[in-house]
């Protein structure tokens, strides 16, 4: 395996219209990636309040990737609301001395296999590095 999975759990919030089918497309291509990744299907990640992210870290999640549709978000205004919210989460993470790189907002399309793999591997490397310290 290219990247060795480690203990730190990575939560992936993947949008129903873009990133979730994108993750399936990686599966159809039988590309492997670390198994410590847990993909949750969401309609629009704008649903989650700031506290949700902090609670996740509190519960022991090591990294979170929000895989959104980006500007192609089908819900009016939702992507911008999300981007703003994540800025606030970053602030709150700093206040709590959480490394903000543990939370990442990105856009993944339905066939963006390489981008998906890159995001997942990067987060895995990062989480490994941070958790070792």
């Amino acid at each position, binding site marked *: 395996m290219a990247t060795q999975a480690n203990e730190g759990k990575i939560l992936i919030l993947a949008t129903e*219209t*873009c990133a979730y*089918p994108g993750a399936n*497309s990686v599966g159809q*291509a039988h590309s492997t990636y670390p198994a410590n990744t847990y993909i949750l299907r969401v309609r629009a990640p704008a649903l989650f309040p700031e506290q949700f992210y902090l609670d996740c870290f509190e519960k022991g999640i090591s990294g979170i990737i929000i895989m959104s549709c980006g500007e192609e978000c089908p819900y009016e205004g939702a992507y911008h609301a999300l981007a703003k919210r994540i800025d606030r989460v970053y602030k709150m993470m700093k206040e709590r001395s959480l490394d903000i790189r543990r939370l990442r907002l990105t856009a993944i*399309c*339905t*066939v963006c*296999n*390489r981008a998906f793999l890159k995001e997942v591997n990067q987060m895995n490397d990062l989480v490994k590095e941070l958790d070792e310290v």
Partner: protein
Amino acid sequence: MESEREMKFDAIVVGGGIAGLQTALDMADQDFKVAIVEKDASIGGKMIRLSKVFPTLDCASCITTPKMAAAAHHENITIFTYCNLNSLEREGDVITASLTQQPRYVDPVKCIGCRQCEYGCPVYVSDEEQGGLNARKAIYIPFSNAIPQLAVLDAENCSLCGKCAKVCPTDAVDFFQQPEDFVIRADTAVLATGFRLTPADQKKQYGEGKIENVITSLQMERILAPHGPYQRVIRPSDGKEPDSVAYVQCAGSRDKSLGIPYCSRVCCMYAIKQAMLLSGSLPIADIVIYYMDIRAFGKGYEQFYQNAKAMGIEFVKAKVASITQGEEQTVALHYENQEEGGVETREHDLVVLSLGMIPDWNPAGICPVATDDDAFIKSVMPKMAPALTDMEGVFVAGVATGPKDIVDTIVEAGSAAMEASGYLVEKRADHAA
């Protein structure tokens, strides 16, 4: 002989490209029962095979797959893929289509689309779904987002080794499957048979398809697609990352010598789109578009064109006179430069022919619907009711009635659905009266 299978629907849609899918969805959402008949092994038409689409640059798969899935799951839509249309005729009040289900050599009920057969098969064949730029197996799922996800055995290339049948977990492979004739009767029909590219090898001056690193625009779509043959942009002959890419506009259109005097309407825009995508993946490459007129007429298209210019894509106003093989597998373009004057030659690593559109289906002998001089299906009221053909109860949508882009195709599909459902309602009211 067994009696032929016969089915009854409100409407039959010929062609499962975006035009056919949208027509079917619009009708099915009004509770009409619709049959979609598609000759390929998957629905989706050209659109599902594109990379990203102008003018919004959204990924083609992302906006086609939802429509394909919606049609596939719709309770009022039945999809027949891998079918030949033998005839489509009006018999009194009904339209009768006689069809042949081509054998997939795979039981569609048993197959779960797992691709074990594909992995097991030892035979490699050039993959036309990837523009012939890489290989597939002799038994294969047409492409990753195909609907239905059913394997097809390519009998011509199968070596009959039986490996697929051995590995298939559901025993779906059936070497003895036979073609099956069946009949669909409906009250109305919509023709959405789309287009194919003008042949790349018909023009002598352009090397008749024999020059290396001269590719078609659809091949470039595959190269640019995230799930394309190379997963990056390289030229086919030697895998070199091109430093300069050129587009030859009107390569198969506006050319009386080819018998295609009309404008194919999408090639300017797709060339600009591909150029923009290329400049993303090859930031330092020169990208040149040789054109006669840039026809960026649709909503947001002119702005798209101006953006491309601002990004540094070079537009040369010239009709390319001929193409020859240059040194080291480059391609030499010979043209008259209208802006500076004189005949010039310039070499490029990779050249894309912006080919035009010709109809994918010729109704002659199959359906008595009229075609126009351009061989596309004739619209008898192009101003007020563009979907009307000369056949009662038979309507037309999308490129079947002349080149057009996806936006115009989808709108026209709505218009065909309107005509077809209006026809059904009126017909039934007449009968009731």
